[in-house]
């Protein structure tokens, strides 16, 4: 498949963090993984705030077989009638946690994210629910 040239006049990215990428140009593959545990707990910091580990939670262990879910067209034909893509201005506030902003050609992406949020409630709070 013929790939078009990307033209971007102006780009402004306020912040890029946690293994993210801003790329101007072509690349072949992008295969990021994000694993995150976000714990919210009332009160002051305490020793028990630590000790959350990925292997304690099944969310980070289980594997779902995606091979049966992929349905590719048996015949795909793409016709590029124009050699380029034009974008005047791109403004992004934040790029975070193994993400990508790219102007150019990318062959394939295989992205995975696993995020677990935990609230630690005091006994009083759980009665209120």
């Amino acid at each position: 498949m013929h790939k078009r040239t990307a033209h971007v006049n102006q780009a402004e990215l306020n912040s890029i963090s946690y293994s993210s990428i801003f790329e101007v140009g072509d690349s072949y593959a992008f295969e990021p993984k994000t694993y995150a545990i976000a714990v919210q707990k009332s009160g002051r910091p305490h020793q028990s705030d630590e000790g959350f580990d990925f292997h304690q939670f099944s969310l980070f262990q289980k594997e779902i077989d995606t091979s049966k879910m992929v349905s590719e067209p048996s015949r795909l034909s793409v016709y590029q009638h124009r050699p380029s893509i034009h974008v005047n201005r791109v403004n992004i506030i934040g790029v975070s946690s193994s993400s990508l902003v790219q102007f150019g050609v990318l062959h394939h992406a295989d992205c995975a994210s696993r995020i677990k949020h935990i609230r630690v409630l005091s006994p009083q709070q759980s009665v209120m629910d």
Partner: protein
Amino acid sequence: MMNLEVHNWDLQVGDIQITGVSSSSLFLVGDMEEAKLTSYYDTPPDSYIVGSLVPLGGGSRHA
């Protein structure tokens, strides 16, 4: 039997404003062949721990 035929004509975009691109996400200006995206997400009320100051073993519910 799926037969997909795509014709890409002019693509001219003015301004793009994005607040955030996060958690193995992707913003691409250009062409690509294939994208496979998986996301596992768990958040309260399905996931909480009550009462214990110790993260494991003391909660009355622990998803």
